[in-house]
């Protein structure tokens, strides 16, 4: 609405067109006023700030970003503040909220053992799945960059899992991991190996979920492939003349030139991995013995099963701090190893 009002006023598109238009009125009015002021003072600069083109342009720009500003206040900024405030209250949605001070945060460390478990599970998952996933994605991208035939086919095969939803993918993998009927154990049996109970063994279950997460590396792989295809060939030609081997070319040219892409993928991978939810929810429900109780799952259960809204908000803030901390840490490290071509960083 507001946008329509703004454009109505600042729309000067129908100047040269016949017919009625608010703008014409506005322009005529403005012209009259300007000619008047020029005539009386003889100075063009007497135009006030409110009539200046800069001001009008800024207003138009604000009209354009208005949707985001409203959305931010209602659905992001406001909720963030609300969730921070709520984390100091005890509120189970029945009685009015009661001030609780830092009790939620203290409880997390002292009494709620499940919270510690969930942090540990999430940490392990992030620390293992992100690096392995990135190495695999980069490896596949390097393979695809060898001028292979049927590039489109290979690329699709590796990318395809990325368009499968977390729920559907999890359901498929539950069936893959099935003790008696799953293809994993039956495949192992064909090779003469003994199958395991992949999803119900507390030692194995997190590993099984990590393997499932490695199935979804399509997006970082495509980013690596694009970065590889954009590498300047002169560097390799120069290295060839110098007689550099494959290994030294990879470590002295390819890796440094790819470092911005690696950095981007690692940061995005961590942000996504900390928030893992659908996989444990569908595949294990957090079990067995809380071995896959991810932070997201623990938070969801507290909020929507036990309706502990205040406690859930406190945990959400810890999750945010975790992501924030890991991202800042990455940015801090970045200056040491990320190479920006032509940049000063």
């Amino acid at each position, binding site marked *: 609405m507001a946008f329509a009002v703004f454009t109505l006023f600042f729309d000067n598109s129908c100047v040269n067109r016949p017919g009625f238009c608010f703008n014409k009125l506005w322009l005529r009015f403005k012209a009259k006023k300007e000619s008047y002021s020029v005539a009386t003072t003889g100075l063009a600069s007497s135009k006030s700030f409110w009539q200046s083109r800069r001001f009008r342009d*800024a207003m138009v720009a604000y009209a354009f*970003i208005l949707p985001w500003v409203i959305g931010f206040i209602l659905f992001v900024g406001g909720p*963030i503040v609300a969730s921070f405030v709520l984390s100091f209250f005890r509120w189970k949605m029945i009685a009015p909220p009661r001030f609780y001070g830092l009790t939620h945060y203290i409880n997390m460390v002292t009494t709620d053992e499940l919270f510690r478990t969930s942090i540990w599970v999430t940490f392990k998952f992030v620390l293992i799945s992100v690096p392995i996933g990135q190495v695999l994605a980069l490896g596949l991208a390097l393979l695809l960059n060898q001028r292979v035939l049927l590039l489109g086919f290979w690329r699709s095969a*590796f990318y*395809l899992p990325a368009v499968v939803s977390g729920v559907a993918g999890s359901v498929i993998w539950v069936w893959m991991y099935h003790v008696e009927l799953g293809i994993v154990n039956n495949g192992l049996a064909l090779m003469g190996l003994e199958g395991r109970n992949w999803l119900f063994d507390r030692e194995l279950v997190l590993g099984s979920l990590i393997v499932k997460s490695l199935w979804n590396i399509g997006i970082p792989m495509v980013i690596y492939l694009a970065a590889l295809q954009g590498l300047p060939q002169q560097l390799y030609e120069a290295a060839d003349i110098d007689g550099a081997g494959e290994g030294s070319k990879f470590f002295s040219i390819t890796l440094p030139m790819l470092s911005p892409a690696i950095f981007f993928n690692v940061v995005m991978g961590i942000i996504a991995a900390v928030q893992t939810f659908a996989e444990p929810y569908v595949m294990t429900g957090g079990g067995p013995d809380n071995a896959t109780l991810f932070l997201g799952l623990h938070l969801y259960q507290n909020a929507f099963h036990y309706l502990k809204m205040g406690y859930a908000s406190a945990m959400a803030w810890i999750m945010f701090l975790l992501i924030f901390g890991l991202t800042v840490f990455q940015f801090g490290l970045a200056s040491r190893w990320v190479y920006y071509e032509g940049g000063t960083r």
Partner: protein
Amino acid sequence: MFAGNETVATAEGLGGETFSRPSRLRTLLLGNRFRSGMVRLLLVYALLLFAAFLFLLPFYWMVNTALKPPNQVFTLPPTWIPKPAMWSNFLTAFTIQYETDPPVYNYALNTVIISVNGVIATIFSSALVAYAFARLEFPGKNAIFLGIVSTLMIPFAVVMVPQFIIWRNLNWLDTLWPLIVPHWFGSAWNIFLLRQFFMTIPSEYDEAAYLDGASRWHIFVRIILPLSKPALAAVAVFAFVFFWNDFLGPLIILSTPENFTLTLFLANFNVAYRGTPWHLYMAAALIIILPCLILFFFSQNAFLKGITVTDLKG
């Protein structure tokens, strides 16, 4: 790239050797460079084949099970190729109704509503905001843009509880509105992506139009949007996949089966069908992922563009 360089080098080497030595075939088969090139090529294809096998295995297992007659699902060892293929499983999975639950096409309808609205809303609102950041000058521009990009770091969990309370107070819980309305306010990632793309459009186009008296709105609708079709298509396909697959959002909002989406249906399938008829479960999963697979096969370029349009060099 490496293989390419080597092929060229080998051809030159061969050419040189035919002049000096007569046994061309011998050199071809035993020439060091050629041989190492061949080994390398074989290794590349072997690795690709192995990786593709692993990545496609879950799809094979799903299709295999989805086509099995019920009595073959629980046989050991499993049948690797279902015989006869039961195409009717898909129909059964799609039309089956458990007690008082609604039919599956009801879930599909809800998902379609959410996804179509989501795509339109995301494209329109994100493009609008992105245009302002790509083309217009206003006080606070850089600070606000930084703010938009940094919201990417905020986990959904942080805003989940307060948003839930908003919907509760609006009496919108267990309706589709909370899954429709918020997407009309731009999404940070797509704003960023579209801004990057808009900046690659030469500004001479809109300056010329501006001098001809076109408003910013007209420049946006008539010049920028038509020139950005590839980027908009990329945003559209990603938005569709996101909304089609969204799980946590519907999970906290929707509570009666009439309003469920397909992902909720799939996640609850196990509970609803206590015996878990795996062939129907897999058939349902296949039907549910099929629209995204088809979309991917028909718009691969849009997908690839959407991923790589962002300038990583920052």
